[in-house]
């Protein structure tokens, strides 16, 4: 699913006294099979931007193309219904959306709405539960009896069961302990790699996660995209990130301090790789 925004802008409550311009002049181009991160401080417009991708918001300026569908200002939300099948969305604290009597029924909500048959739905529920690491024995329990971490998994399974091609993740790991956080992000990585056309768009404040789990970053500030590129490209300019009230990952911070020229390269932003780079710099540079 190709996603392309051209000069997209959105104003909340347009034409009312409470009018608020949330994003403007946005250009993005997301090919199938991408791992994207959108980073930015509170209120910079990240959620507003990504809610356009499945038609929850209709732009008030510019255009947005999602696959075959082109969305223009003034279009009715109703005609964009089908986008929700191909673009799934995990909201922040998704466990707050659970409502069914059993875990199974809750996960089945999306496939049912999207018209999957009974057998197909059951199969999707089983597979989604497996993907997020929920034990089959939990399917008949009430979601409200589960622990916080398990509830989060149920909610995510509920989105995966809709079989999206693109997954939008709005701070999916907030509030989890470090191991839980890593496991959650690894899970999305695995999901993405299962099919060559699957993409995800991770919305986060966590620069380490953005560095590790995305191949391309969009940096937002005050409703605009102020930087974009691969993590390595974006982290070349810590000063500009600071202007957007963001940090660089610790690995980049330390390496920049030691080697002002910025001639280092990182792929995983993990400690072992950083140590390799530091060792290389200390031994007098040497070929990359």
């Amino acid at each position, binding site marked *: 699913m190709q996603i392309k925004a051209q000069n997209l802008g959105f104003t909340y409550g347009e034409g009312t*006294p409470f009018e608020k311009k949330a994003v403007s002049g946005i250009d993005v181009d997301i090919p199938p099979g991408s791992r994207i991160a959108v980073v930015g401080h509170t209120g910079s417009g990240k959620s507003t931007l990504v809610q356009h991708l499945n038609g929850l918001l209709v732009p008030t300026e510019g255009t947005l193309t999602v696959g075959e569908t082109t969305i223009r200002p003034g279009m009715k939300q109703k005609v964009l219904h089908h986008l929700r099948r191909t673009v799934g*969305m995990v*909201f922040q604290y998704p466990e*707050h*959306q659970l*409502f069914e009597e059993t875990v199974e029924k809750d996960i089945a909500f999306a496939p049912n709405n999207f018209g999957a048959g009974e057998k197909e739905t059951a199969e999707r529920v089983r597979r989604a539960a497996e993907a997020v690491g929920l034990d089959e024995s939990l399917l008949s329990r009430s979601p409200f009896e589960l622990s916080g971490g398990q509830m989060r998994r149920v909610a995510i399974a509920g*989105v995966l069961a*809709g079989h999206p091609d693109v997954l939008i993740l709005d701070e999916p790991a907030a509030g989890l302990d470090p191991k839980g956080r890593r496991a959650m992000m690894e899970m999305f990585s695995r999901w993405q790699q299962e099919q060559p056309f699957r993409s995800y768009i991770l919305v986060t404040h966590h620069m380490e996660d953005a560095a590790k789990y995305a191949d391309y970053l969009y940096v937002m500030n005050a409703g605009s995209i102020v930087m974009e590129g691969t993590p390595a490209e974006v982290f070349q300019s810590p000063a500009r990130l600071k202007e957007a009230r963001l940090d660089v990952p610790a690995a980049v911070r330390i390496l920049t301090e030691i080697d002002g020229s910025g001639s280092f390269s990182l792929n995983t932003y993990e400690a072992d790789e950083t140590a390799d780079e530091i060792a290389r710099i200390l031994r007098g540079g040497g070929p990359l």
Partner: protein
Amino acid sequence: MRSMILGQYVQGDSFIHRMDPRAKLTGLFLFLLVMFLANRPAALIPAAAFACFVFLMTRIPVRYLLKGLKFIAIMVIFLFLFRMLMTREGTVLLDLPWLPIYEEGVRDGAVFAGRLFLLMVMATVLTLTTTPIELTDALERLFKPLQRLGVPAHELALTMSIALRFIPTLFSEMEKIMKAQMARGASFSDGSIVKRIKALIPLLVPLIIQSFRRAEELAVAMEARGYAGSEGRTRFRQMVWRASDTRVLFTVVLTGICIFALRG
């Protein structure tokens, strides 16, 4: 909802803004009482004059009020017509075949509508010049003497103030849940009535659960900050009843006397 200003607050520093909210509330109540003395339209003139005078003192642009009263005015005209047609006494003014209009009806309708309109104007003036928290505070204090009779004045006022604080939060919560369910293919806007009501379950269940969680967390946070009921509590907001507040109430009574004199 631009045309509805009852309930909104406009920042300002006029005499009316600075009045003791208790005096404003009491004044409104007195005003309501004295208007009942009027039994013909002419008798409402002093009340109208008083209302104009008070409004001018708020220094809020007249246009703002006029625009905001549109909705109320339509309602009042409707009630006037209704009342007029319901009363069938006195001489017939206009002998329409199905709906004869009586003199008494016009008079009664006009008094009724006039009272209601003036009351709404004054209530609007009250909310335009008083923050919600001042209002709840004033209510709490005015009802305090009733606490001995078992009226939970403090608890009611606190509940109101918490409700005020959480209404915007609940709205954004509702919007969020709605979007989350729409992303999972839920639709809130099509299908039969039964279907639409059923579609509300995925919205209402999480909303209620979340509200309970919020209430519990808030209760814990309040307790942690030493909240233990009204006993021994002092207040941050001090209200001072000045001589001028009493004078305003006196003016309302004076208006009442004028109305009484103009009774037919």
